[in-house]
């Protein structure tokens, strides 16, 4: 059985209240969710809270998962990203109100190891992103990691809205071409 099929059955079991199904999903997807959250919020303590909130939301909202709209992994990433963007925006408004920002102390050398497959995928995607035009990279970056809407992106980069829309789609298609989903899903 593929990971995607296992994920789907985990969702079914979660709907029936089986917490072990959540454990299974947690172990499979948390490294990716946590890395994404940390990339967006920048601070480990915030990323940990984002991860926790996202899983609670997944547990409560398993009924709302719709397989027709994408994979379980994509759904979980959407939950984690939107919690992270919310937190990032709150941080930004706090930063505007304060003069100094507290920074987490660097962690000791006892961090849990990153899975080799996750690291390899990251390297492939980073290489793939380098084949995009700078504009394409920038619109993806501002949209996905900074949470800007397309209108906000257009005014930030000084390009017409229609151009931003077409850069965005072209960028995602290019990414699909360079890192086909079947190869790693």
């Amino acid at each position: 059985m593929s990971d995607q099929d296992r994920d789907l059955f985990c969702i079914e079991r979660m709907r029936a209240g089986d917490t072990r199904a959540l454990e299974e999903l947690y172990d499979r997807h948390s490294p990716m969710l946590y890395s994404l959250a940390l990339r967006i919020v920048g601070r480990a303590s915030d990323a940990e809270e984002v991860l926790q909130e996202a899983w609670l939301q997944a547990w409560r909202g398993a009924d709302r998962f719709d397989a027709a709209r994408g994979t379980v992994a994509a759904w979980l990433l959407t939950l984690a990203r939107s919690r992270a963007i919310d937190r990032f925006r709150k941080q930004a408004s706090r930063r505007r109100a304060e003069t100094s920002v507290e920074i987490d102390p660097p962690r000791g050398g006892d961090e849990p190891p990153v899975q080799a497959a996750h690291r390899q995928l990251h390297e492939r995607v980073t290489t793939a992103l380098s084949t995009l035009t700078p504009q394409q990279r920038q619109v993806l970056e501002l949209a996905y990691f900074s949470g800007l809407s397309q209108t906000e992106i257009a005014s930030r980069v000084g390009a017409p809205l229609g151009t931003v829309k077409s850069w965005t789609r072209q960028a995602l298609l290019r990414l699909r071409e360079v890192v086909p989903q079947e190869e790693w899903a």
Partner: protein
Amino acid sequence: MSAHRDEHLELCAALALGAIDERDRRELEAHLAAGCPECSRELARLSDDVRTLAASAPPVAPPPAVRARVLAAVRSRAPAERPARGRVVALEPRRRIAIATWAWAAAAAVLAVSTVVLWRVGEDLRARLDESRGQMAKLQTDLDEARRWAALLDSPEARLVELLPTPAAGLPRARALYDPAARRAVLVFDSFAAPPGSDYELWAIRGDGPASLGLIRADASGRAVVRVHDVGDPASLQAFAVSLERAGGSTNPRQPQGPVVMVGGVGG
């Protein structure tokens, strides 16, 4: 439905990225709700492309403590495991009273009242204990049942059966997870809302002909899950099939009366 345009595909990309403007979102949601197959397919693919983009975040493993926190929080919310909560009464700090005799009288009164209250609390706790025992017994039964279903996933014998639409059908999708040893099967159906006045019916195709496994009743999102406790003799089971019947299903449990729209062989 609003006619499909290439701009809709651009909006799908913006939606998948979470960057769509509100007006565009309303337009796209209406377009999707009207059932544009091209945009639905593309949206699912784009959400996977966004998943690729997410992997550009530098990989960092989450601290193990978060796992424990998440599980503890979820367990405390799991409906079946949620204990009956006692009422908590906030106690206000009392003001000191300077007059000693007054204090002694008050203490005696408090003691008398406390005794009655404690006796009532004891009765209440006993009743709750009985109730909890009943709940525990039910939970154990539920847990045993859940374990039997979970065992299906780990069984080395379990087979995944894909049911594909026949050319006459639209886009519904079905999958069956079937364990011949346990004779159990779980079938998951997507985009499975039956047209008005009709019902989808599930069949086991056996050596001696079809046998109805019941109607497939999808929820509002078109999704349905059917658990079959006993699919019959594994040596005789050849396939799962779905027919589109008049409302209420075929009147003959051994023969579909409507067209068979999906079929999936269980293989050997």
